[in-house]
């Protein structure tokens, strides 16, 4: 049976390769920091299942320490020039989009094929894990196809991947860290405390008001923090899970997915989400640094109401 463990070995090998390439890259003044950070992440993927919880915890603290002292830098791996890329794009045309399409097609078609044919009986994949495992297989297919078609130097995919990874930096593990925070919140009983308090504030069994409070919390916390990902574990632990899912019996998939999107409506309305709202105003040389936000509010507010309606209808009316 193919499990996540296989996927972790694949991902761990990628991160290990990136750590080695970082170490060898003298163009990056902080190459030791990069090598240590990606090396520790590789260790987590390759060995995490065999380490003790405490050792995994120390590993997390070490990674956060490196990121916290600003230990990661950006490297500049060799790549093609803009002129060369322009020539290639003319030569290759829209076929360039095809290798990227291999990944979602493999994963989605593979999942459907697996779940709706007798293949399911074989138990080839760990239960509920087939899509992400097929995503990994799709990535390998896409890489092989692109390598055969484009014939780049052997290390090119690793170096190009490292170029993108370095532009993301430590933020690459932020979603995983936030999910871990959500787990610690659950363990410490945060949801019970807020759920109890919210239970007294929200009129009994008024599902619509509870949905509104959940979506409002997602949007407002996102606006304060500039980041819907950070708002999610908080609001899920506070209202989404204890109240909407447990007390009112709502569909968890709808509440999770659309709750996050209610948070994205908040992202459209806050200067704290600088990368999306303030940086483009500067790039476009706007006089009003909030000019982009002003154009987004008219979309964000009605869309937020849509999200409330989608949760109310999808997670409750259609579900029960």
């Amino acid at each position, binding site marked *: 049976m193919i499990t996540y463990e296989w996927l*972790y070995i694949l991902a761990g090998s990628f991160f290990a390769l990136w750590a080695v390439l970082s170490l060898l890259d003298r163009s990056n003044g902080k190459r030791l920091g990069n090598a240590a950070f990606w090396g520790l992440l590789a260790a*987590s993927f390759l060995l995490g299942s065999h380490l003790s919880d405490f050792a995994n915890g120390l590993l997390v603290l070490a990674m956060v320490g490196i990121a916290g002292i600003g230990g990661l830098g950006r490297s500049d791996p060799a790549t093609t020039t803009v002129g060369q890329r322009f020539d290639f*794009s003319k030569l290759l045309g829209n076929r360039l989009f095809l290798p990227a399409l291999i990944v979602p097609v493999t994963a989605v078609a593979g999942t459907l094929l697996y779940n709706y044919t007798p293949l399911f009986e074989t138990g080839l994949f760990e239960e509920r894990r087939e899509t992400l495992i097929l995503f990994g297989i799709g990535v390998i297919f*896409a890489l092989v196809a692109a390598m055969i078609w484009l014939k780049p130097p052997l290390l090119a995919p690793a170096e190009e991947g490292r170029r993108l990874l370095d532009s993301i930096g430590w933020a690459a593990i932020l979603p995983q860290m936030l999910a871990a*925070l959500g787990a*610690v919140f659950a363990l410490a009983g945060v949801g019970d405390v807020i759920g109890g308090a919210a239970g007294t504030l929200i009129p009994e069994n008024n599902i619509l008001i509870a949905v509104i409070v959940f979506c409002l919390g997602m949007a407002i916390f996102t606006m304060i923090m500039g980041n819907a990902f950070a708002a999610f574990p908080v609001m899920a632990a506070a209202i989404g899970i204890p109240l909407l899912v447990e007390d009112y019996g709502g569909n968890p998939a709808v509440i999770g997915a659309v709750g996050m999107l209610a948070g994205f409506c908040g992202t459209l309305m806050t200067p704290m989400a600088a990368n999306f709202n303030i940086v483009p105003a500067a790039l476009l040389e706007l006089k009003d640094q909030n000019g982009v936000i002003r154009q987004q509010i008219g979309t964000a507010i009605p869309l937020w109401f849509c999200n409330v309606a989608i949760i109310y209808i999808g997670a409750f009316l259609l579900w029960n």
Partner: protein
Amino acid sequence: MADYLVLSGILIVVVGFALRFNPLLVVVVAAIVTGLLGGLDFVAVIEALGKAFNDNRYISVTWIILPVIGLLERYGLQQRARAVIESVRGATMGKLLLVYLLFRQVTAAIGMKDVGGHPQAVRPLVAPMAEAAAEKSHGDLPEDEREKVKAMSAATDNVGLFFGEDIFFAIASILLIQGVFESAGYPLTPLQLSVWAIPTAICAFFIHGSRILAFDRRLGRVMGGTTR
């Protein structure tokens, strides 16, 4: 009352992010404080954090797609995306931004969220094209209207990305949702979550799309009396 102390972790996250401390540092401090106030000793907190991080490794698996995207960029993926956008040259501003909104949503939905973006597409391409198209239909724009056209171009990129990307199942936000629900005892699959991004994506297209077209019409009314 003492129970409410465990909520200080939430306060740390909110204040820490708002004050722009390193988010990883903020999250770890919030986790440790929450665990300690929740009655765990220090070693148990580190263990809980390590276990939770380890259990959620699949969220960071998504980065293995970077070599594919990087390789395609090496051979001109960005330039090809530009050519697609440029092919709508000659359209009105409304139609141009509407096509870009759809292009951004669809490419993000199939995992190519970096073919658009502000430095790569909006600044060099979408905003200048929108400006040129608006001036062609409505004549020379005053400074404040020109600013709004540029701002609307950037807004269209954001809306298209935010309400397209979650349809792609192997993306951090979807897997974060999965992780949080799984820790709470509700196992979900990525596809179960990502299909529920579709209704909002459709609403976003209609709401933002009609605002783009209304903006173009309003420019026509405002400018109608002053030019030609």
